């Protein structure tokens, strides 16, 4: 059972869920940087501006010399609000490029430290549109959204002038045909024939890209029209399905391990689903739903969870060792609460994993274990026989949470 991340699945937001993913389990998605998404667009024939990636001010200067002035220096971080944070700047010449790159690199944007900038030939903008293709989880179909009212928050367009936002589902067995593209363009109110033609072509290519990369979200905001009447993608938000990466090794390589929280990156490496929170009670459960519920119960018991850590469906001994390793790297953790309800996960395996981890790591933190479900009795017996001084078991989730909160106080 895979489980998503605590707040909803990471992709979730991308896949039609609310904030950051959403389903509790993040259907896991790999979010790509703007420059990576644009490269995929380019490969599939969607027009983008000429650009280069730079990791330091000197190479930013060289990149700008290469693409030609003026250029835009854009922070590459996996979060929104770059512009407002000062992460996107126009440069007229080489000195400005170097100066802007110097300021932007190292900048912290909503907790994301900028390590890369994208140097792109600046575009003159006549009009800004919006085009996206994503999963509509309810309709269980890909959904195009298009509006000529780009350049503002798309949520605002949806709220204030819903008629201006054209929505069109595609039957995945039928595929995307020119009529879909025409519908979007006509219903969106695009009247210029050249624009109609260019946007229609982009719609078809966006669908191709979406299917070819097994994407969960492809968003172009803004899709611009230049004074010369040329239509181009000026930004990209691109998420691909983690579950399909096994057959897209090129995409799997795009994962930016440095962009993730270091603990979260370690967790990913270990195959543990981990989200760092800000408290003292380490929470370890199996399954996203139960783990999320455990985080709730620890909070209701007056404690502050240090993390959300989901062992997933397997939960073998090594999995437990890995998870404990991740959790205990966080110096704020003062007690650990294991809440395991076995289905596929077997209680005896978890118990062995706990003992193995405590032994290997010399763990002295208090650990409270609540085991139920498959082979739970055997697990409790194993823990009982080991009689570790820092390990106690509780019969229920509530009691376990209360005990862990006391111990962390």
């Amino acid at each position: 059972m895979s489980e998503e991340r605590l707040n909803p699945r990471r992709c979730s937001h991308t896949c039609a869920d609310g904030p950051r993913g959403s389903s509790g389990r993040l259907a896991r998605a790999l979010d790509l940087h703007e420059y990576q998404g644009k490269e995929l667009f380019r490969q599939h024939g969607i027009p983008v501006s000429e650009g280069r990636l730079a990791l330091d001010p000197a190479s930013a200067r060289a990149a700008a010399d290469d693409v030609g002035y003026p250029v835009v220096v854009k922070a590459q971080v996996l979060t929104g609000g770059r512009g407002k944070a000062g992460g996107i700047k126009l440069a007229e010449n080489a000195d400005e490029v170097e100066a802007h790159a110097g300021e932007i690199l190292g900048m912290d944007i909503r907790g994301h430290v900028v390590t890369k900038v994208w140097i792109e030939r600046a575009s003159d903008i006549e009009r800004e549109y919006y085009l996206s293709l994503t999963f509509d989880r309810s309709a269980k179909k890909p959904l195009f959204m298009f509006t000529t009212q780009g350049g503002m928050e798309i949520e605002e367009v949806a709220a204030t002038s819903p008629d201006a936002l054209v929505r069109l589902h595609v039957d995945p067995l039928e595929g995307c045909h020119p009529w879909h593209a025409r519908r979007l363009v006509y219903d969106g109110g695009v009247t210029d024939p050249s624009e109609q033609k260019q946007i229609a072509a982009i719609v078809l290519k966006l669908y191709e890209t979406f299917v070819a990369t097994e994407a969960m979200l492809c968003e172009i905001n803004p899709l611009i029209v230049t004074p010369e009447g040329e239509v181009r993608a000026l930004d990209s938000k691109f998420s691909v399905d983690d579950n399909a990466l096994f057959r897209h090794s090129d995409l799997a390589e795009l994962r930016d391990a440095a962009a993730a929280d270091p603990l979260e990156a370690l967790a990913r490496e270990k195959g543990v689903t981990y989200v760092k929170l800000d408290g003292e009670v380490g929470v370890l459960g199996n399954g996203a739903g139960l783990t999320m519920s455990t985080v709730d119960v620890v909070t209701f018991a007056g404690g502050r969870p240090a993390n959300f850590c989901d062992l997933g469906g397997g939960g073998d001994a090594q999995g437990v060792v890995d998870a404990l390793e991740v959790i205990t790297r966080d110096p704020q953790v003062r007690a650990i609460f294991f809440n395991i309800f076995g289905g596929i996960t077997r209680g005896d395996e978890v118990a062995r994993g706990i003992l193995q981890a405590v032994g290997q790591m010399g763990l002295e933190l208090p650990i409270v274990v609540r085991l139920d479900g498959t082979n739970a009795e055997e697990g409790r017996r194993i823990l009982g026989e080991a009689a570790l001084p820092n390990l106690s078991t509780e019969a229920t989730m509530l009691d376990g949470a209360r005990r862990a909160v006391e111990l962390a106080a």
Partner: protein
Amino acid sequence: MAILVDNDTRLVVQGLTGSEGRFHGLRNRSHGTNVVAGVTPGKGGQDVEGIPVFDSVSAAVAETAANTAMVFVPAAFAADAMFEAIGAGISTVICITEGVPAHEMLRLHAFVQHRDIRIVGPNCPGVLSPGKANVGIIPAEIFREGSIGLVSRSGTLTYQIGHELTQLGIGCSTIVGIGGDPIVGSSFIDVLGLFEADEQTEYVVIVGEIGGDEEEKAAAFIESEMSKPVVGYIAGFTAPPGKTMGHAGAIISGSAGTAEAKKDALEARGVRVGRTPTEAAQLVAEIARA
């Protein structure tokens, strides 16, 4: 009566010869499920503790009249296995496998539209009708037979709530884990409709979690289509707001996706919602004993 699986279930396990398929297939049989066949391409003719293994689902159906399939094959082959089961005439397909690519589920879902086929999952714990049949990985021993229909997006949380109900002496007609993937075969609404029509089910418990708007949709369905009392539980009340990237999702669902929003949507429709599994079970007990 129960829903989806019962005494008439004749189960074929796709992936029976794998370690998980074998463990859970045999466990399902020991609960009383009529496990009639296994399928593993290339292993036809073998058996797993007396359960005959076939090379294909169609061969299994021809020999054993299987009517329900449980898919336990690795993620890369799971959609193929589901299509194969449907092609062999199976009408109920329950996919336990996690990690099935979402685009494959899109196509599968489009394919089963307007066909009389029920898919549950993927990435789900399965379906248990206590005392009748267990198809999947739900530990049957923690549930008892009764009149509560339980439907959930989460596996282990379902066990937790079932366990709490059992402690209060309350049993279930059927427990359905619909899975939490972006595209699942059966939604809350599909299962709520089955419970509404099921004679054994008198009350329904819906277990949701943050994200998406399935709970909100279920709330509307409960108000307009259901006569039976429903109790809810939502996990994730204390989840911090996450980062967002891209905006298409929230626009589609029109919901904040938070536990509070879901609770409000359900309560506005007269569904009482617990803040912990224990509280939800107590609400069920109150209603059932009223």
